[in-house]
């Protein structure tokens, strides 16, 4: 989230799209009900289904799953063509004024630089034009035909309400009301928050969905202000923490990059990332990348990281490609994987195309499942009839189940969607032989290191170089681990005058203290300060809110630097005055930037220096146009899902995302709308938590059995009765479930054609207390987003038929 959960109460308009906060984030959703009840805020929900959030909404608009870009582009077009934008914000805080290279082109859905054989773009033409001083050219009047603003107007002009209706199936009046309400916040007085989740990300063009949302918020001036923001709602209590800490396969902790094969030396890695400012006076905070990266190396390799050996850079693995889960399972399916360790992971359920996953798992030599509960994956080899049809005699995979303590049986921190790190204390003793993840991994590491010491092997040098100097190597303490995350001074740190500002051994208070000469460590710069010199900030439980704006500055610790709203300098105008007195947040008091939050800015830089509020960007401003960062274009375009009931109405030549990666097996497994005319989409239910709580009796009571939601019209067409068992098939597999026939789903009219959609909750499997069901991902396709590789779970094609004689 750019903002925080508690900040949602400041919103005047809440827009939930690509998510279902009431269903999946009921506790956070309370701040929406707060905004509504106490501020009179309006809530609008755009979703293929009339869902639990819609039940709470003042306005609901339906759209066909997978058509979000068109809907959002329609809103962008409405804002631009009616001049309902926050002009000053757009001019000064976005790159609207920047001039784009003359050779950039957009043609029939494709941007210049497309290479069909490689399914990728050469992005060099998506660059700004630069002046002789090396800085990007701008036209602050926004009138240059090659400026981002003018390119944008042209690009989005075709997304009219009529087109939105044709592509998305959204009735024009319902769309119009959304656009109207959005535009009511383009003024600095009123703010809108956008809340989204996997309904936007789980598409082959998911990142572009979110780009659209960011662009709308920037046009309205809703970024960096109370009650604004683009707010990603994370799906687990600690999934923010887990991505922070670097489980993304191409990242190390704190969103630093894992080196690639093209970066043989430390300097070659760092020079690509320490971005120089693109306009005068800008902060371009990533210039500090080397400090964070070197501190990370110092934590990782300790005394073995020296200036002479590039701080152990050589020990780090170098990527030859990305290894996301789809890739991992494709390799596994090809028989190229020996073993898999699943730590709190149930991939048979979580990964698309379960049948492929099951075949892949059966080709492993060993599988380790570290989990507090028995997972379907750990028992993939068991025959559960139609729900997991496998011949155990043919599976040679050796499966180890290592019982792990649950969250309540160990102390530690969780980081929520607000980037808020909160401590939890141990509430109960672990059951039986279960051990904490740390203990298991430490034991594994220590044993492996002994084996390497004795027998040697590939990567021995790196493994032995790892700093494992915990007091008890088998039980690294919470204090030791937190100190590693936070970072400390390794020698006395002195300021320019020679004064010691941080004594050797002391923990760092902010990442601003990190250095690139090896005198500090700290493996996760964004968390620095949460375990600073004054103690464990995550344990703070002061719920006072002096400003009344939901900041709660002394509750837990919000990374980075305990900042609750990111880009908060943008809550004031270029002169440093708040856009709105009612939403006065971060402003210049004549001497420094002040307000209830920690400024996302150097606090002493006066407004007249014109340093942009988006200090992480080399431009100093936000990006309506993204240069090279997106694989699939500097602007969003309408792309259909890879399995779509209709062709691309806007750009007939585009079949899916033109740069999404597709493996051979998955391409062959795509179905057509002839055999599978119905759109399927998966989602979770509020009664369950992913694939875990199906093992919990009370949760099973509240939703006991897999079902499929469909409209009354589809049920009638197919002769399906309420509560009847039905079969749902895709080109990859089939599942069986009870029919929930509902008014909450309605058929869409897409370009004159009736398109049905069914909803498939994902929480059910063949292990646990709920009635047995096949993994829902038996239906889904293993094609992911071109940028994030997030699988396209939200739009695929199925067919459905009643199973005779079975009505509950």
């Amino acid at each position: 989230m750019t903002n925080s959960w508690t900040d949602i109460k400041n919103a005047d308009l809440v827009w939930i799209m690509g998510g279902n906060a009431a269903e999946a984030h009921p506790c956070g959703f309370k701040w929406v009900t707060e905004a509504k009840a106490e501020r009179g805020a309006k809530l609008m929900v755009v979703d293929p289904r009339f869902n639990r959030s819609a039940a709470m909404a003042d306005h609901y608009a339906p759209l066909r799953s997978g058509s979000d870009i068109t809907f959002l582009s329609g809103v962008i077009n409405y804002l631009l063509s009616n001049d309902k934008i926050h002009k000053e914000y757009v001019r000064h805080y976005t790159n609207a004024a920047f001039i784009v290279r003359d050779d950039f082109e957009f043609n029939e859905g494709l941007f210049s630089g497309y290479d069909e054989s490689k399914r990728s773009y050469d992005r060099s033409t998506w660059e700004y034009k630069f002046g002789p001083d090396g800085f990007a050219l701008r036209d602050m009047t926004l009138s240059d035909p090659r400026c981002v603003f003018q390119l944008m107007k042209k690009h989005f002009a075709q997304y009219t309400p009529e087109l939105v209706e044709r592509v998305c199936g959204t009735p024009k009046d319902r769309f119009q009301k959304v656009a109207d309400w959005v535009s009511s916040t383009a003024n600095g007085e009123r703010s809108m928050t956008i809340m989204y989740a996997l309904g936007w990300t789980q598409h082959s063009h998911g990142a572009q969905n979110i780009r659209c949302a960011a662009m709308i918020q920037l046009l309205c001036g809703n970024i960096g202000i109370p009650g604004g923001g683009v707010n990603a709602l994370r799906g687990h209590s600690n999934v923010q923490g887990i991505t922070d800490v670097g489980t993304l396969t191409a990242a190390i902790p704190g969103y630093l990059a894992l080196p690639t094969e093209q970066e043989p030396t430390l300097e070659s890695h760092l020079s690509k990332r320490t971005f120089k400012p693109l306009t005068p006076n800008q902060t371009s905070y990533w210039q500090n990348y080397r400090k964070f990266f070197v501190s990370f190396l110092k934590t990782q390799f300790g005394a073995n990281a020296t200036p002479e050996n590039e701080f152990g850079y050589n020990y780090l693995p170098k990527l030859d490609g990305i290894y996301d889960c789809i890739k991992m399972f494709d390799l596994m399916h090809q028989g190229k994987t020996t073993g898999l360790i699943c730590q709190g992971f149930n991939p048979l359920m979580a990964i698309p195309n379960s049948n492929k996953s099951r075949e892949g798992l059966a080709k492993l030599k060993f599988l380790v499942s570290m989990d507090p509960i028995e997972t379907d994956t750990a028992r993939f080899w068991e025959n559960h009839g139609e729900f997991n049809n496998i011949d155990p005699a043919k599976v040679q995979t050796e499966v180890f189940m290592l019982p792990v303590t649950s969250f309540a049986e160990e102390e530690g921190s969780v980081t929520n969607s607000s980037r808020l790190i909160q401590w939890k204390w141990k509430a109960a003793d672990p059951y039986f032989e279960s051990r904490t993840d740390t203990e298991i991994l430490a034991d594994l590491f220590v044993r492996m290191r002994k084996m390497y010491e004795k027998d040697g092997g590939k990567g021995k040098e790196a493994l032995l170089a790892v700093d494992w100097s915990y007091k008890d190597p088998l039980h690294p303490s919470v204090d030791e681990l937190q100190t590693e995350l936070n970072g400390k001074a390794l020698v006395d740190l002195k300021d320019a005058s020679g004064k010691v500002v941080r004594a050797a051994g002391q923990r760092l208070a902010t990442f601003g203290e990190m250095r690139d000469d090896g005198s500090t460590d700290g493996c996760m710069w964004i968390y620095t300060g949460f375990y600073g010199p004054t103690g464990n900030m995550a344990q703070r439980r002061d719920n006072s809110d002096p400003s009344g704006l939901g900041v709660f500055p002394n509750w837990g610790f919000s990374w980075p630097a305990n900042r609750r709203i990111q880009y908060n300098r943008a809550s004031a105008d270029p002169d440093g005055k708040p856009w709105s007195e009612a939403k006065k947040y971060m402003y210049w008091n004549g001497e420094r930037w002040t307000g209830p939050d920690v400024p996302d800015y150097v606090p002493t830089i006066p407004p007249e220096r014109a340093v942009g509020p988006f200090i992480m960007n080399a431009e100093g401003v936000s990006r309506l146009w993204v240069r090279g960062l997106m694989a699939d274009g500097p602007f969003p375009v309408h792309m259909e899902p890879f399995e779509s009931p209709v062709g691309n109405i806007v750009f007939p030549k585009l079949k899916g995302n033109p740069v999404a990666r597709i493996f051979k097996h998955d391409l062959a497994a795509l179905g057509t709308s002839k055999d599978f005319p119905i759109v399927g989409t998966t989602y979770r239910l509020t009664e369950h938590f992913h694939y875990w709580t199906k093992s919990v009796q009370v949760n099973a009571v509240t939703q006991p059995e897999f079902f499929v939601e469909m409209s009354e019209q589809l049920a009638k067409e197919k002769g399906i009765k309420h509560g009847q068992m039905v079969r749902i098939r895709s080109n990859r597999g089939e599942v069986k479930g009870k029919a929930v026939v509902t008014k909450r789903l309605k058929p869409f009219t897409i370009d004159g054609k009736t398109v049905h959609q069914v909803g498939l909750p994902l929480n059910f499997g063949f292990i646990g207390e709920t009635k047995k069901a096949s993994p829902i991902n038996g239906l889904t396709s293993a094609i992911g987003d071109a940028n994030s590789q997030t699988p396209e779970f939200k739009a695929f094609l199925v067919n459905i038929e009643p199973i005779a004689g079975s009505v509950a």
Partner: protein
Amino acid sequence: MFTPVPNPTTNPVPPKFGEQDLIRRSASTVTPPAKRLTEVAKLIDVSKCIGCKACQVACLQWNNLTEEVGVNVGVYDNPHDLTENTWTLMRFTEYENTETGNLEWLIRKDGCMHCADPGCLKACPAPGAIVQYSNGIVDFVHDKCIGCGYCIKGCPFNIPRLSKADSKAYKCTLCVDRLAVGQGPACQKACPTQAIVFGTKDEMKQWADHRIKDLKSRGFANAGLYDPPGVGGTHVMYVLQHADRPEIYAGLPNNPTISPIVEAWKGVTKYVGLAAIGAFAVIGFLHHTIAGPNRVTEEDEKNAERLTEGRS
């Protein structure tokens, strides 16, 4: 935000009310206490309820109940009805509002309403099996319950359920055990959106006004409070978007009262019946006293003998 009941202390607390605060006791007469407790109420704001069922789970867990894992029958309601273990249940209704053209998904948390004039208590034949405290709580006392099911017939809301295991009747207690030590009900504690709030009845009415104003501003002209006077008001109240038509909320009764049949059964019939029985006994006694016994005479025996003479 309605200030929630603060977290409890971990130290033992003496109960804040008990036997001495009963204002009604089934099949018994009680002397009303001189000092009445402040009436409490749970306010369920249907317009804020997302149907997450956290209240259902909290109820099961706090009361240490185990419900069976059922099946899906084509709806979100699970279990499908209240049971002896499920004392509160989310009921989902898909309502097409013809005036606005909007679909509304109405989600109502069903459970005991804790009526001021409780039909269950009126119907109960077992002395002390159902009690009413002066703060409004209507509670079942299970060691006195005989399992006759009269409370089910007495209830205007169809709430109590007989247990298959011990044949006693069960329903929401308004967490009488939690309230006694100054906490709010478990369901209210678990509710993530403040769709359930708890406080004194006056506070709840005020809070409801605040909510109704908001709903009216959003076009729900008939938004209102459900505190049915027919049962003397309730200590569980609803804020409804369409208070003029409570029946669209999964059959919430419109202007409920204790059924006249139950009133007749437990009222006039009882006295008339006992009087009739007494009257018959008295009339018999009087008749015997006045008319004396009807004896067979010698004459009768002789007549019989004469009639049978010569027959053997």
